[in-house]
């Protein structure tokens, strides 16, 4: 009985956090790209455009939902739903931290722990293809169809190297459940090198990590693999014919997939919520340090503001950051928050790489994409898997 309630609560929390994450991820992306390209980025809505996501949401909701006349209605409606569905389901399999005790209830920071979680995630993300493909096909438009076919082909072909890149660390971690694989990465060599799978013997999984991230880019149709929505070739790819909320759904799905991929990368390769160096060397004071420094930066900027309203906003942020920093010092809360911090830090780092790359790299040509998948990614993953299994077998 408490199980169900507990799951509901956890689901609620996850959904809330996830939604905000997605919304603000987009803001972050715009900001980062802007700064990479020496622009300012959104700044009208709210301080530093912090309310931009909200504005976008409102815009998307209130926009006219126009339904093209030539589409194949049921599938046209079904497509974005599928896309979001299969993008969000994996979230409930991902653990964000270890066990916790809240108000005497002992539970895990995870909606549900399936013993074959990684496989399920693979399957579900693979089914994300349907949304895209169906959208492309249902909207009865050659650009959309092109986009849909491209994306399905691309996803299928990149699923192989991804699966193989996943298989390699699994050989070392020797489990399929996320929780256990994170536990298998606990501890340190010589007391300071973390036992994450990218460092872990017998064969450090750095290569498979790189392969996985690349394949992840392709899976999520991100630059440089965003062929399905190559503006200059096919107007907007599979969601050409979609507007307002349905478009938003695809958008959300894409970001959700990004989050999923980075979470899985964190769990598989970066040791989940385990700290970069042992708490004995004060790793648990890192968040306090970071947030403190951030607060100080805010205050220092507030002294001589670049923009008039910075005089008000920056101190507010500084105070907020200080509060957060303080919260991280409270032992019980710290015991809850530290894993979240590390997890978020790692996942955020990978997400940042996503954005960074998008700001940096041009787009592949389609044949190059496939060529890359089958002639580099696949053999590389295969060789990597081979060596890993060889070394595992030898030890």
């Amino acid at each position: 009985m408490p199980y169900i309630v507990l799951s509901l609560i956890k689901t609620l929390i996850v959904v809330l956090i996830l939604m905000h994450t997605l919304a603000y991820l987009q803001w972050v992306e715009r900001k980062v790209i802007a700064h990479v390209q020496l622009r300012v980025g959104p700044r009208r809505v709210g301080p530093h455009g912090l309310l931009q996501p909200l504005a976008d949401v409102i815009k998307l909701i209130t926009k006219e939902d126009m339904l093209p006349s030539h589409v194949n209605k049921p599938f046209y409606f079904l497509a974005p739903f599928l896309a979001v569905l299969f993008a969000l389901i994996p979230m409930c399999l991902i653990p964000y931290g270890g066990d916790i005790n809240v108000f005497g209830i002992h539970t895990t920071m995870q909606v549900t722990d399936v013993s074959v979680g990684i496989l399920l995630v693979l399957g579900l993300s693979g089914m994300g293809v349907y949304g895209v493909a169906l959208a492309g096909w249902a909207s009865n438009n050659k650009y959309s169809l092109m986009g849909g076919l491209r994306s399905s082909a691309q996803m299928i072909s990149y699923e192989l190297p991804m699966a193989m890149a996943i298989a390699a660390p699994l050989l070392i971690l020797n489990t399929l459940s996320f929780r256990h694989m994170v536990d298998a990465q606990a501890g340190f060599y010589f007391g300071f090198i973390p036992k994450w799978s990218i460092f872990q013997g017998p064969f450090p999984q750095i290569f498979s990590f790189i392969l996985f991230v690349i394949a992840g880019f392709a899976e999520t149709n991100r630059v440089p693999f965003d062929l399905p929505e190559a503006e200059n070739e096919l107007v907007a790819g599979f969601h050409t014919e979609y507007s307002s909320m349905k478009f938003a759904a695809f958008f959300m799905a894409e970001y959700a997939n990004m989050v999923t991929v980075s979470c899985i990368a964190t769990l598989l390769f970066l040791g989940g919520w385990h700290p970069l160096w042992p708490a004995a060397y004060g790793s648990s004071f890192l968040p306090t340090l970071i947030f403190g420094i951030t607060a100080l930066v805010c205050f220092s900027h507030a002294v001589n503001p670049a923009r008039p309203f910075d005089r008000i906003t920056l101190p507010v942020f500084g105070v907020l950051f200080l509060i957060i920093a303080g919260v991280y010092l409270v032992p019980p809360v710290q015991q809850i928050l530290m894993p979240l911090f590390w997890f978020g830090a790692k996942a955020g780092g990978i997400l940042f790489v996503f954005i960074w790359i998008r700001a940096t790299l041009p787009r592949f040509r389609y044949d190059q994409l496939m060529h890359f998948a089958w002639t580099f990614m696949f053999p590389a993953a295969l060789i990597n898997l081979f060596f890993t299994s060889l070394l595992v077998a030898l030890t």
Partner: protein
Amino acid sequence: MDAVLFLVFAVISVACAVNLVLQRHPIASALSLVGVMGSLAFVYLQLGGEFIAAAQLVVYAGAIMVLFVFVIMLLNEGKERKQKMKLWVRWAGVPLLFAFFALMALIVQAILPPQANVKFGSFTAGNAADIGDKLFTRYLLPFEVTSVLILIAIVGAIVLARKELD
């Protein structure tokens, strides 16, 4: 509780299957088949087949059906034209079908007393470790043979589907 879960997914799968048969559009059939597979995956989970459930999603729903959808889109044949069936099919088909089904149900009831209950989680041998263990010890030869079969299938598919060099 188990019964409820089972009934939910059973109903979904049957509905999807019926839809598969009745829909005149291949895409619709394909999607409903995906539905069947998904719900069957959960039924497997209930029966303790975690690995099989995952494999069902990955292999069937994730790969095979994607292939189907892909091909359907590629050909883009549109709806199946209505056309009057052959006589015996029209008259004998459905009764035959139901006779078939009734017989199967009859046998099931005959060989399995309804008291054999399935409790979720009471069967644990279905996890990946055990399956893999058995797969690579006792069923090693079939496993390898299937891999060869897959290879042959790939080659055959390529040979069949590639453009004739003219």
